[in-house]
């Protein structure tokens, strides 16, 4: 990622010029007023490739101020190249305070996860979205999907989920699992695991979604119903894991598989690294750490 050679001139505070920020801010306000509806906006080129979350970066840049504390996560981790680069970008162009602790952050930009700690009032969660249109795989034409949203015609989506059930005996979708927002719009929650869908429902935090390549912004206000689509005889269920986190022993959190060696050894650990580290600092010990402690004795 190439950093822009800008000084921290006020006019380009947070990289974007004022006119662009106004345009994005107006889109955010309409997105909040129409929960789940995708507001078109004139996405700008950012000094990073599209796959790096330019939509989320633009939303963050438009809302961020000197008082904010920013956290950036990628798949739950603060220390991946993507998260580190975006955090460094905003430190440079907005001179903003940063943190890895969910509880300290006022703005959290995320790719593909929602933190395990319950978000609270006053926090803003900004999602990086690759494909904002939940109906895209069923109907590639934008004119048609727009019409379907306008008429609230979501039958096709239910047919797709039901075909899943017919084929696999269950709804096979595990990521970007479609939700209905405030009883009206069907929305793509971004490629978060469906494990995270219940966290969106009536969250105290404001949730903003930015898709850079597809030029869309959408939002879920706090305390807004977010319901995962399902059927009476096949209710929505989140993934469950057989074992707790191998490092901190946490249950009921989303775990990533980590391969330990080339003999098939593996362990499951919290995808939310801040959550896991905080638990370990508080003295919680998972199976793997327990073993290594015993081995050291």
């Amino acid at each position, binding site marked *: 990622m190439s950093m822009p050679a800008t000084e921290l001139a*006020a*006019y380009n*505070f947070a990289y974007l010029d*004022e*006119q662009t*920020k*106004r*345009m994005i*801010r*107006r*889109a*955010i*306000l*309409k*997105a*909040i*007023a*129409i*929960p789940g*509806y995708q*507001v*078109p906006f004139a996405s700008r080129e950012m000094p990073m490739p599209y796959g790096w979350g330019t939509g989320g970066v633009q939303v963050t840049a*438009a*809302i*961020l*101020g*000197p008082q904010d504390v920013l956290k950036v996560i990628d798949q739950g981790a603060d220390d991946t190249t993507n998260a580190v680069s975006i955090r460094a970008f905003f430190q440079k162009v907005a001179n903003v305070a940063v943190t890895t602790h969910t509880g300290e952050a006022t703005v959290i930009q995320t790719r593909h996860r929602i933190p395990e700690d319950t978000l609270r009032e006053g926090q803003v969660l900004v999602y990086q979205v690759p494909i904002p249109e939940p109906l895209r795989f069923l109907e590639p034409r934008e004119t048609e999907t*727009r*019409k379907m*949203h*306008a*008429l609230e015609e979501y039958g096709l989506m239910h047919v797709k989920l039901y075909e899943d059930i017919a084929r696999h005996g269950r709804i096979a979708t595990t990521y970007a699992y479609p939700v209905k927002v*405030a009883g*009206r*719009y069907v929305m793509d929650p971004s490629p978060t695991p469906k494990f995270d869908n219940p966290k969106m429902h009536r969250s105290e935090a*404001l949730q903003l979604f930015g898709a850079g390549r597809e030029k869309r912004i959408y*939002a879920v*206000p*706090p*305390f*807004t119903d977010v319901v995962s689509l399902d059927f009476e005889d096949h209710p929505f269920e989140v993934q469950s894991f057989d074992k707790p986190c191998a490092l901190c022993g946490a249950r009921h959190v989303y775990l990533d598989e980590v391969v330990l060696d080339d003999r098939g050894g593996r362990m499951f650990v919290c995808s939310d690294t801040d959550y896991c580290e905080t638990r370990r600092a508080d003295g919680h010990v998972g199976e793997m750490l327990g073993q290594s402690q015993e081995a050291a004795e």
Partner: protein
Amino acid sequence: MDNRNEGFTGGFPDAVYNSQTVFRTLMDCMARPGSLGLVTPELMPPAPLGVAAGALMLTLCDHDTPVWLSPKIAQSNVPGWLAFHCGAPLTREKSEARFAFLEAGAHLPAIAHFALGAQDYPDRSTTLVIEIEALDGGRPLNLTGPGIRDVTHLAPRGLPAELLAQWTDNRALFPRGLDVVLTAGRQMIGLPRTCKITALEV
């Protein structure tokens, strides 16, 4: 102050940071209908525009956003101030306005005359900023809807009499509809189209 200069002075002392602060206040107000927002930057918009209403104008309006002004505001120094600070075009057609401003006590035009968005582009609608006497001390109202945990209470004083009746029609248009910001001096409250307003018996 010399009235001839009023069109140029009284903007944000620090446009970049002040507009960010005001936007965040408004964003919170729209995300949490009924919660009170306070405009802290020092600015002096020309009368009859209030401080919060003027701050919203500076924060949101530019050459991409046609603005409709009430007859009284249109005859004040506000059009010059708006042109100088924002470069926003004025429109006489309410249906073309992205933003519209009413001073305290102004007659509320029929909401249906403003831009209400299309069924497939409901975002293309007017945001109406209405100055009122005060955001408290008036007739009690209950607000429910997205952004509100259960119910929130509001008692705006000097709300245009027609607003509540028209708001029911506005709600029926969803996802189309008008969004409203109530301002009183430095304070503001957001009323997005999703907000359900119920008048309490007194």
